[in-house]
């Protein structure tokens, strides 16, 4: 078990399709996190940016881009890219610097200005890139993979499209209470069922949209927090950034095939489950200790998968959990109290940071109408393309 780092500040730019630069979203989120922490930007010893590959050259050097926008002040800088796990890796990098004594207080920022419609690979003829290949050869968009996972759950576990819709209904009800969410309307099961099929069996309202958005955190050493007068901060206790173990036998984006288990038998634990286990082990807790979870609901069906991967229930019991209301506010383990991606949409480098913002507000008891009573321990779970784990445990 490692030492904790304190979360002194959290901030966001509202999600949506605003048509502005990712720099503006990230800078707004950063200023809000700094104000929340009661710190001046010049107090920050290190800035870590989560990269956005769609932001052009400045997007690839996000840390320096945000530092320039906030005003050069000489801070240590880093930029990280890990696809959808970029935000968690940015948190991990800042945390490592703090625990190593390289910085007392660090700013973590992620922001994106997403394209309309499907995410797509970078341009050019690049047949050595698996992401390019899956589009060129198969036209396999992200939702087609979500459709494969959903259909597999229906065949193996007996889940139904109605079960999937329950996830959207639950998350939309929470998103309606979140001023940072893009979609702030409740949704009915009938509306989900009436929306267009995107990738059988999933419909438009089963799948998260692409969005603009930004999120930021101010992290510090526990000593700094004490000196700053914050006696009982929300603390980050674990950050899991693990890779899969060979052979990875669940078809993962963006691959066209799995690893073969012909020579080495597959572990019974899936990659997603190993992401959570690493976080639990580092934090010295188990699923029974959780007050809430923020999971990467790229699709409604995938949220059910995360219930199982986080150990909130046994394998195949995810649908039962949502049917029982266990993952709704007031239930045993509320999931996606923020409204999740169902309400936010995806702003790739920001999302894993936004999850920790929500954990922070919930653990402070400052989440307003969507507050989970008595929240003490929260986990985020997420996965980045090309084998990036992402999970954060926060406690109060």
């Amino acid at each position, binding site marked *: 078990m490692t030492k904790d780092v304190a979360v002194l500040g959290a901030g966001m730019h509202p999600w949506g399709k605003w048509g502005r630069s990712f720099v503006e979203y990230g800078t707004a989120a950063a200023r809000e996190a700094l104000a929340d922490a009661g710190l001046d930007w010049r107090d920050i010893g290190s800035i870590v940016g989560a990269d956005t590959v769609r932001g052009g050259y400045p997007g690839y050097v996000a840390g320096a881009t945000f530092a320039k926008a906030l005003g050069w002040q000489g801070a240590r800088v880093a930029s990280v890219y890990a696809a959808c796990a970029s935000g968690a890796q940015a948190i991990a990098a800042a945390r490592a610097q703090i625990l190593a004594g390289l910085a007392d207080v660090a700013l973590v920022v992620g922001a994106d200005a997403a394209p309309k419609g*499907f995410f797509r690979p970078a341009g050019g003829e690049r047949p050595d890139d698996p992401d390019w290949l899956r589009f060129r050869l198969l036209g*396999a968009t992200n939702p087609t993979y979500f459709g*494969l996972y959903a259909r597999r759950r229906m065949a193996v576990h007996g889940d139904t499209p109605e079960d999937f819709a329950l996830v959207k209904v639950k998350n939309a009800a929470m998103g309606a209470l979140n001023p940072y969410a893009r979609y702030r309307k409740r949704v009915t099961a009938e509306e989900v069922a009436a929306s267009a099929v995107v990738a059988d069996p999933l419909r438009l309202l089963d799948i998260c949209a692409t969005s603009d958005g930004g999120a930021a955190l101010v992290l510090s050493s526990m000593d700094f927090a004490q000196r700053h007068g914050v006696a009982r901060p929300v603390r980050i206790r674990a950050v899991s950034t693990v890779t899969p173990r060979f052979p990875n*036998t669940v078809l993962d984006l963006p691959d066209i*095939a799995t690893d*073969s288990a012909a*020579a080495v038998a597959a572990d019974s634990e899936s990659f997603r489950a190993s992401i959570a286990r690493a976080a639990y082990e580092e934090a010295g807790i188990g699923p029974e200790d959780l007050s809430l979870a923020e999971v990467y609901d790229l699709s409604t069906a995938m949220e059910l998968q995360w219930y199982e991967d986080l150990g909130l229930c046994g394998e195949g019991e995810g649908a039962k959990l949502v049917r029982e209301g266990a993952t709704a506010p007031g239930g045993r383990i509320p999931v996606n109290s923020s409204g999740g991606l169902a309400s936010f949409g995806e702003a790739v480098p920001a999302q894993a940071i936004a999850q920790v913002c929500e954990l922070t507000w919930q653990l402070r008891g400052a989440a307003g109408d969507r507050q989970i009573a008595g929240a003490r321990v929260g986990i985020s779970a997420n996965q980045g393309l090309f084998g990036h784990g992402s999970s954060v445990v926060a406690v109060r």
Partner: protein
Amino acid sequence: MSRTRTPSVAGWFIGDGDDFRLLGTRCSSCATVFFPREDVHCRNPYCTGGPLEEISLSRKGRIWSYTDSHYRPPSPYVSNPELPWEPYALIAVELAAERIVVLGQAAPGVTVADLTVGMEVEVVPGVLHEDAETTWTTWHWRPTGVRA
């Protein structure tokens, strides 16, 4: 038509008709199979590595899962924006001998209504798209016993 038939990707499949096969590689040291082919070094972390040999994959497998695509995929997928979009099915197929799951488009005319998880399918030659000079070929999955 005098278009040249050219594989959409080199070295992934070979042959015609009933002789059509997906091509992968196998590590001569640990026998791990790779598709798409791995030609540089064995990726089994327990293996010190050996020469990688080209192999043909099993023609038949069972459906792990399937879906379809109701909206036109973005480039680099090639489709004619002048024509109305026709959804096509995608099938992930488990090959028993290789212990691997391989994704591919379903043969034309096969829809999700024709499929179930666990159903047997076979690999068949297919066309990805055509331009003025070239017919770009690919692999398709088709339920066994069905003829185009």
